[in-house]
């Protein structure tokens, strides 16, 4: 037991590494705040493009999205970071990360948003357009809010995944949390920083993971309530007053 404490929860080591770990955590959160909006917004635009396109354009969009879903982000990052300068392009660590994540996570977000948008009944589009609303207004005010509600668990789940993905940045030298933990481990010959880092990730992301489970449970309850409602309809008598 003592061995466990000395190796995994060494107070002395932790005190020494604390500042490095917290600045690493800050970097992680900063990266997440950078890439999530980028990936999300790009993904939304891609999804909207998929929805309005037909024929060959749609297939091309799907091909693009599937390509970046299949291509491991770590490889993409290394490619961009080391490869781009060889072609004469400036590519700092942050640029490489921004590009990698935009390309990779926008594809996942695009699929999620697309599923949500397409799950909204066509009648909603028709009602909005028939009343004279432009496509974009119908999309933003009527269809998208309903679509997002349906896929909210997937969106939050993807946000968690993307935050975890920031640990890849350590490969290109960004001192995010994992990098800081590994560095501290190297200098102190003790793995307590690793354990501390794992716990930090846990503390930050656990609420979101819980949220995903709660949202999914709520959607399940809503849809089974709808199914029960539909089954009972013929028997129900609704009291109604006429004007």
């Amino acid at each position, binding site marked *: 037991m003592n061995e466990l404490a000395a190796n995994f929860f060494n107070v002395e080591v932790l005190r020494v590494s604390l500042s490095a770990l917290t600045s690493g955590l800050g970097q992680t959160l900063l990266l997440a705040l950078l890439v999530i909006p980028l990936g999300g917004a790009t993904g939304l635009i891609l999804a909207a493009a998929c929805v309005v396109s037909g024929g060959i354009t749609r297939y091309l969009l799907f091909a693009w999205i*599937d390509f970046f*879903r*299949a291509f491991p982000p770590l490889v993409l990052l290394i490619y961009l970071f080391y490869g781009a300068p060889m072609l004469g392009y400036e590519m700092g660590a942050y640029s490489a990360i921004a590009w990698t994540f935009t390309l990779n996570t926008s594809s996942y977000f695009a699929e999620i948003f697309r599923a949500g948008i397409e799950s909204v009944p066509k009648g909603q589009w028709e009602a909005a357009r028939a009343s004279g609303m432009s496509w974009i207004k119908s999309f933003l005010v009527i269809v998208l809010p309903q679509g997002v509600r349906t896929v909210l668990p997937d969106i939050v789940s993807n946000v968690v995944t993307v935050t975890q993905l920031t640990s890849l940045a350590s490969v290109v030298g960004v001192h995010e949390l994992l990098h800081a933990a590994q560095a501290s481990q190297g200098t102190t010959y003790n*793995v307590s920083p690793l354990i501390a880092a*794992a716990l930090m990730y846990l503390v930050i*992301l656990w609420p979101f993971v819980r949220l995903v489970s709660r949202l999914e449970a709520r959607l399940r309850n809503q*849809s*089974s309530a709808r199914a029960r409602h539909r089954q009972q309809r013929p028997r129900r008598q609704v009291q109604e007053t006429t004007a």
Partner: protein
Amino acid sequence: MDRLVQQFFNSAIWWRHWEELARGLGLTIGLAIAVVLTGLALGIALALIRAASGRPIQWAIIVFADVFRAIPPLMILVVIYFALPFVGVRLSGLVSAWIGLSLVLSAFVEEIIYGGLQSVDDGQWDAARSTGFGFGATLLIFIFPQALRMTAAPLTNRTIAIVKNTALGSVIAVPEILNVAMSALSVSANSTPLTMAAILYLVLFAPLVICSRWLEHRFPQRR
């Protein structure tokens, strides 16, 4: 342009390293299959146990699923490989990757399958129980298969996503594709091995992604 080809598509380098990369590919595929098998088995088992258990066990499984979904897979691999030796458990990179990724996959699979079990219409339980089937039998014979069909698409998607994490094994010295490519890269001072790795990954994962898109088309999620 010429420089680009020289750096990234150099055929001489290609021939020099293709064998190691092929071995890396084999290892990656082996690791992926192993992870999928153990991850799915464990996840399904946990979901079924959770459905059949009282509060304490349910809470324990929920905590497990939350922890292994929240902590980044890379972090989990690093902890298993670097930290466990300090308490006497020394595992190779490959075994660490297998155990770590299996645990992560099982956590997601448990949540997906359990959600599926909950989504099966109550009427199914009523029908089976009223014809004399016990709880366990009903769960296994009637409810679980339906849950599996309903969750085929998200299950496949999540499995593919986790399997892509085998590339993370390169960080803990697993001689999978990326690792081999990176050492070939430094040996030859040329980025062609990286291109080879990218192509191999695409060849490996593109069919899986297309397959999952087909699955979503075939079994659309009805929310």
